[in-house]
């Protein structure tokens, strides 16, 4: 199937006072129309930076998407578009919801106006039509009494309700791609499941693809078709959700799965991965996971492993699977 989004060799660096942070360092993956891709990895591995790079919203300075990166969406490289052309894509063809529903809505504008804003901007509706559509969207995301809520301010809604509003806003223009950056992390467990179900439901209804960023593998198992595992700014493993869970290749993926409650049935003690994520200002010379890896070999500390293709849509970045293909 044709690719909807194809990220190739994305590098996003931050130029801070302490030095250059290669937050995203040569990331490549793709998303097919209508599918849900999970992006997982520990805190700080560059998931959020990857997502805001896709919309070209990296704060600059200090951030910069480096030369040679490509973000191909529906056949055009977003990095080559003008700012005005890029704005026609944001909130329209690619929209985004964030981790913090409590602070992601503007406190001084009415809910309905915030939803209507994208419709006025991208769909050319008039005010009355936009308001109607906003109410319709609120109904769609399961908000009770949408005719009333449309005139409310965000502070009168709970976190779960606000995230529903964010989803309504994100889906208002029927985007081809929805980027959801930890959409449920800040919510109560019961509400988390509801929001996930809602997203899975609606993406089918509007036939959008989803980039679902999370560090919760349970969420991945439930919602995703394929998975990309990131570590310290690089993709270390990629595959369909079934093979990733059943047959993880990279020691980091294996560790992540082991640290996940109830995934590996019958286990009562969680094994968290020993050690900590490397300081992005001072990355190891070889494989970035080597200092924490229980299978690390000499070569792992010397050279960076390349990507090994294991099968169709299945890749891993580890010397255990290809010792020759090291990149300096």
């Amino acid at each position, binding site marked *: 199937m044709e690719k909807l989004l194809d990220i190739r060799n994305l590098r996003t660096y931050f130029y801070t006072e302490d030095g250059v942070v290669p937050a995203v360092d040569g990331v490549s993956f793709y998303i097919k129309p209508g599918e849900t891709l999970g992006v997982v990895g520990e805190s700080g591995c560059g998931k959020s930076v990857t997502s*805001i790079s896709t*919309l070209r*919203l990296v704060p600059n300075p200090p951030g910069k998407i480096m030369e040679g990166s490509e973000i191909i969406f529906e056949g055009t490289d977003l990095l080559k578009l003008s700012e005005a052309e890029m*704005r*026609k*894509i*944001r*909130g*329209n063809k690619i*929209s*985004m919801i*964030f981790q*913090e529903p409590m*602070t*992601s*809505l*503007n*406190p*001084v*504008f009415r809910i309905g106006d915030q939803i209507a*804003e*994208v419709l006025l*901007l*991208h769909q050319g509706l008039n005010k009355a039509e936009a308001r109607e559509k906003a109410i319709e969207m609120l109904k769609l995301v399961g908000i009770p009494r949408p005719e009333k809520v449309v005139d409310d*301010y965000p*502070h009168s809604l709970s976190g779960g309700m606000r995230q529903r509003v*964010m989803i309504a*806003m994100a889906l208002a223009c029927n985007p081809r791609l929805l980027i959801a950056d930890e959409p449920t992390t800040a919510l109560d467990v019961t509400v988390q499941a509801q929001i996930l179900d809602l997203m899975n439901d609606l993406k089918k209804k509007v036939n959008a693809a989803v980039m679902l960023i999370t560090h919760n593998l349970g969420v991945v198992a439930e919602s995703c078709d394929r998975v990309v595992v990131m570590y310290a700014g690089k993709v270390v493993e990629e595959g369909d959700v079934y093979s990733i869970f059943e047959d993880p290749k990279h020691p980091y993926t294996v560790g992540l799965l082991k640290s996940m409650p109830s995934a590996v049935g019958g286990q009562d003690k969680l094994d968290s991965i020993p050690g900590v994520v490397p300081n992005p200002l001072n990355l190891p010379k070889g494989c970035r996971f080597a200092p924490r890896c229980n299978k690390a070999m000499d070569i792992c500390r010397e050279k960076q492993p390349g990507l090994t293709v294991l099968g169709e849509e299945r890749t891993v970045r580890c010397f255990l699977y290809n010792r020759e293909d090291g990149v300096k």
Partner: protein
Amino acid sequence: MLKYTLKRILQAIPLLIIISILTYLIINLAPGDPTAFFINPEKASRLGPDYVANIKHHLGLDQPLHIRYFKWLGNVLRGDFGESFFEQRSVMSILWEALPNTIILSLVAELIALIVAIPAGIICALKRNSIWDYIFSTISFIGMSLPTFWFGLMLILVFSLKLGWLPTAGMRDNFDAFVFTDRLRHIILPAIVLGMGGMAANMRYMRGAMLEVIRQDYIRTARSKGLSEKVVIVKHALRNALIPIVTMFGFSIPALFSGAAITETIFAWPGVGRIAIEAVFSNDYPLVMGNFMIIAVMTVVGSLVADLLYAVVDPRIKYE
């Protein structure tokens, strides 16, 4: 909201009474004696102590302090602030005449302050650590530390005396008719002097508020919707960053009124501030009291306005 407003007004009454007691005490205990002005030394030596006592009695100063205060308070509650010792007119008529002049001067000063401070603060925040940030921050720092009288005299020196562009003093040259340009020329310098402090403070507030707002999540949301940078800043960010500025506006009313005292004196602007200073120096007790009570009421009203404006601009604030 109406109930809240009424409650606040009722609460203000005891506060105003306490302020009036303190003010009354301070001005009466301050050195200086208003009777001195009325005493003719030749007559005094001829007529003896009875003459002085008679003058004291005439001014109502022969009674003990607390009796005088309660008399004054009783009259004030009936809307009578007494008569000025030196201008044979009621305090009310003097102040009513001067008050509009002070209000106009203060409003123009605040307007100038905000027109400069808001855009400058935004530029400083958006272009943080740029040359503009440094320039405006320096101006703001100077503006906060400049002594009003010195700054006023410098402006007069340069723009009135050296360049001859603007008049040195007064409110108008044409006393027969209202001529807008005449009034405008007269108000520019005093308004700049009076507005300087507020401008400097507001610029800093605006810069800080804007810096705070632009890193909020909802600004990222606004950008992710595809809005232009102009809409993101002018609509989504500014509307939030203005909240503290609007609130400040209420509190700046008393500051403007007290600042007006010096500015009006320098520029001979016929407002209540100048009258206050003259009244204090001449120990014109009724006029001082009337004047200070106006400032006290303005302060109370200002903080009430600040609170009410807060609820208007921030939907999260509700008063029961």
